[in-house]
């Protein structure tokens, strides 16, 4: 790791100012991703601003739903009674990711800031436009088994590795950020971005902006009974998704009154499946229905030499997740 200056922040405004001062400075929360990236020489900040002392850990009910502080750990969120009761999809998704130890360290804000696991990104000896803009995409003509089906560009075909974020986007979460220009909110679906011409930008945060909280809307509690987070991976646990599906349904008997569907492991951002959701609405559950919904969801999918299997696995995963959620 490169040497760096370490600052312990006592207030959000001071932390933001500290980060703004140096172009390479980073906020440090749980560190599970950032410290790893620093060890690999992927990120070399000259200053880390430790925000763990900031009062951003709370999980509390608000008039509009549930507010989760950015520094709440993944475990705290997954185990929280209000989350388990009203947003069980989020608990399922979080517990499908990483390991218990990592979930005890990783924070909600940090999870959202998690970089891709693309091996070309992680290896400074290989080209990667996300790490070094203009250096090329090693995955495009390389080993792209773990890579995107949707929304990729010729600059970057990496996927977002988070499980938590797949549930968050399905639940229409809202992100609160604080920055040099004040506070603002970002729809979760707009928080992460597609790579386009700027794969170095994972999200729509501006320099110096700090995530302070995530709101789960009260309306999403309607999706608390029929839920499934299906993650297909190369081993039973502690592995990144080949494909994952978050499914949450609101039902009246065997009729779907509303559906929330999102996928992980298929795009540069958690991938919401609006077309499939709309299609399912008002229909009676059946394998045939789910298969058609899955087909709709796959319409714009584009595969690469090593991830063609995802064209089969992803719709299968949607079908299976819907079956389990409605069983």
């Amino acid at each position, binding site marked *: 790791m490169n040497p760096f200056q370490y600052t312990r922040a006592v207030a959000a405004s001071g932390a933001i100012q500290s980060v703004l001062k140096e172009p390479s400075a980073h906020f440090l929360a749980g*560190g599970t991703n950032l410290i790893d990236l620093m060890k690999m020489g992927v990120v070399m900040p000259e200053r880390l601003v430790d925000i763990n002392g900031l009062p951003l850990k709370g999980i509390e009910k608000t008039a509009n739903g549930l507010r989760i502080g950015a520094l709440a750990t993944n475990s705290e969120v997954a185990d929280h009674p209000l989350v388990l009761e009203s947003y069980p999809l989020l608990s399922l998704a979080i517990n499908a990711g990483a390991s218990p130890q990592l979930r*005890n360290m990783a924070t909600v804000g940090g999870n959202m800031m998690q970089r891709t696991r693309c091996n070309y990104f992680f290896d400074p000896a290989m080209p990667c436009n996300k790490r070094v803009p203009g250096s090329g995409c090693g995955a495009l003509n390389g080993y792209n088994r773990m890579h995107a089906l949707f929304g990729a560009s010729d600059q970057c075909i990496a996927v977002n590795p988070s499980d938590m974020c797949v549930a968050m986007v399905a639940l229409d979460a809202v992100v609160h950020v604080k920055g040099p220009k004040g506070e603002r909110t970002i729809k979760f679906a707009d928080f992460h971005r597609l790579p386009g011409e700027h794969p170095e930008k994972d999200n729509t945060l501006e320099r110096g902006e700090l995530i302070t909280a995530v709101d789960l809307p009260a309306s999403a509690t309607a999706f608390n009974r029929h839920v499934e987070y299906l993650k297909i991976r190369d081993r039973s646990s*502690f592995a990144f998704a080949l494909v994952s599906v978050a499914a949450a349904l609101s039902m009246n008997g065997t009729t779907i009154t509303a559906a929330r569907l999102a996928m992980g492991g298929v795009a540069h951002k958690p991938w919401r499946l609006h077309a499939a959701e709309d299609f399912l609405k008002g229909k009676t559950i059946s394998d045939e229905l789910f298969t058609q919904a899955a087909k709709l969801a796959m319409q714009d999918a584009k595969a690469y030499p090593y991830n063609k299997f995802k064209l089969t696995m992803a719709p299968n995963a949607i079908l299976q997740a819907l079956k389990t959620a409605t069983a």
Partner: protein
Amino acid sequence: MSKKPDPPKESEAILSGSRRDFLKTSSLLSAMALTPAAVIEAAEHQWDEKFADAAEKIPVTLQVNGVSYSVKVEPRMTLLDLLREQLNLTGSKKGCDRGQCGACTVHVNGVRINSCLSLAVCNEGKKVTTIEGLATGDRLHPMQEAFIKHDGFQCGYCTSGQIMSAVALVKEGRTQSREQISEFMSGNICRCGAYSNIVKAIQEVKNNQA
């Protein structure tokens, strides 16, 4: 204009013996507002290494296994390396240094974490428990006894992390089923493949508590 830094006080000199440190890192330069000439001048004096250490290291006070330690560390030192290399508590193991194997698992304020991804400086004021702090005198922790009884290890290298994780697991109440135990022990890799014996050890401890 360059300003010559003051030689550090004796109390700022740290730990290891003779050293030939050169001040050449960019962050240090910007932080101390030194010109390279001044750094080289500093390096040529007797006090170079002490100065370097003092500039690079910051104080941390933390409790490990009930003992309070006040140390000075570079911010880039991990809790795991502090334990192993500086405090000589080598029970916590390094198997990947990237949070991918669990051999470094310790409890910080009662919660199991991977100490290889936690900077030592982030543990100011925290209470750390390592495998060395689990037994009470000569009396082993029940989980340690159960690991011996069920042979929950072979080479022993992942064992500290497994036991620290297992103790936390029981506390977390993640022992409702064999599947749950396995799932919530999956952050600890055992290449010798002692998993099923580890599960038996955990089940025994859980049952004895019930």
